[in-house]
């Protein structure tokens, strides 16, 4: 049963396409050093969510992250688009993040999450406290209880 579900998820993930999207702005490229410096300089708790428009779980968790970004305004939300086409990324942002309070960056090579201590898979979410200490890495789709827990952790 589990391999069947996993197989179906992989197939539909590869075949998924955005429908009815409104194009947004393509995110600006960023390097690991610049991103790390920005997190350190902010002095605020920060989460970095790496995503791609071709990633089905990223689409699924995007509304939750968008909502959290508008309700937890004392936390910086950085959306890092990786290994993606700028046009597709812009369409994704237009579809899910027009109302979100997020900073958008892109990493076409996909090496930034690896350098941050994560991996090449998406989605992946990094939680930093106000001192820019990495508190937690959540690999895979994030659910509301996990997001709420680690948002609470980085604010303390």
């Amino acid at each position, binding site marked *: 049963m*589990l391999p069947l*579900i*996993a197989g*179906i*998820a992989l197939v*539909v*993930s590869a*075949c*998924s396409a955005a*429908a*009815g999207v409104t194009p947004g702005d393509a995110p600006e490229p960023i390097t690991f050093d610049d991103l790390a410096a920005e997190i350190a300089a902010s002095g605020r708790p920060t989460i970095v969510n790496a995503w791609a428009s071709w990633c*089905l*779980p990223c*689409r*699924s*968790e995007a*509304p*939750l992250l968008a*909502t*959290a970004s508008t*309700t*937890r305004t004392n936390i910086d939300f950085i959306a890092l688009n990786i290994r993606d086409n700028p046009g597709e990324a812009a369409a994704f942002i237009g579809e899910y993040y027009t109302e979100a309070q997020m900073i958008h960056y892109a990493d076409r090579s996909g090496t930034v999450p690896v350098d941050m201590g994560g991996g090449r898979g998406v989605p992946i979410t990094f939680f930093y406290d106000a001192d820019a200490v990495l*508190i*937690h890495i959540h*690999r*895979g*789709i994030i*659910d*509301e*209880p*996990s*997001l*709420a*827990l*680690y*948002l*609470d*952790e980085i604010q*303390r």
Partner: protein
Amino acid sequence: MEFTLLGSAAIGVGAFWLMLRWEAKRGNAAGCSLDLWDAGLTVGVVGLLAGRLIAMAQVGINPLTDPAQIILVRSGVSTAGASVVAVAMFIFLARRSILEDADAIGPSVLVGLAGWHAGTVISGTWLGTVSGLPWAQTAPGSDITRHPVELYAAALYVIAGFGIALWKQRGRPPLGVPAGLTLTAAGAVRLATEPTRISLSGGPVWLYASAVVAGLGLAVWAVMDGRRSIGNRKP
């Protein structure tokens, strides 16, 4: 990460099955028109599917244009939607002997819920608000101790489930009272543990309160209406 959620669900289903077996050996299913195991699984799957579809609609994901999203249960299930549809599905399936079936399956449902809540240890979503109590636990990589809120819920569900089951076996309560108490317990446990939960939007407290009120109403009605005890059920 989806597999950890499946692990939690498997523990819940396993606990439900074990409780059904334990009760079946004590003549629990007398008077039932349903196969309780089949009914439980059907109700669970239908409720889960409905809850997922409702959650998708709430965040603006169209299941017709994005059907693959339905299987990504981890990204959200509407508790209220799933609960209401599950109860409606059960009433439909058990329409020929609703109270008998509800009395029979109730404790197993509570123990199954206990298994699900305990299983959240696997998926890492079992901790709540900050606590200094001796049994408080920390999240991975953290030194902040928190209430193991899902274990509180699991313990309360086990107590309620076995309490109602033993009362059924020994006290022979009026028909419908165990079902009413099951509904009451399902809501009351969530209400009791809600203050120690953390979430972005808060739980559907109205749903839990409604379950308590409806369950108590059913139990009182059953006591007043029926003098038929479980021992006098139709064969």
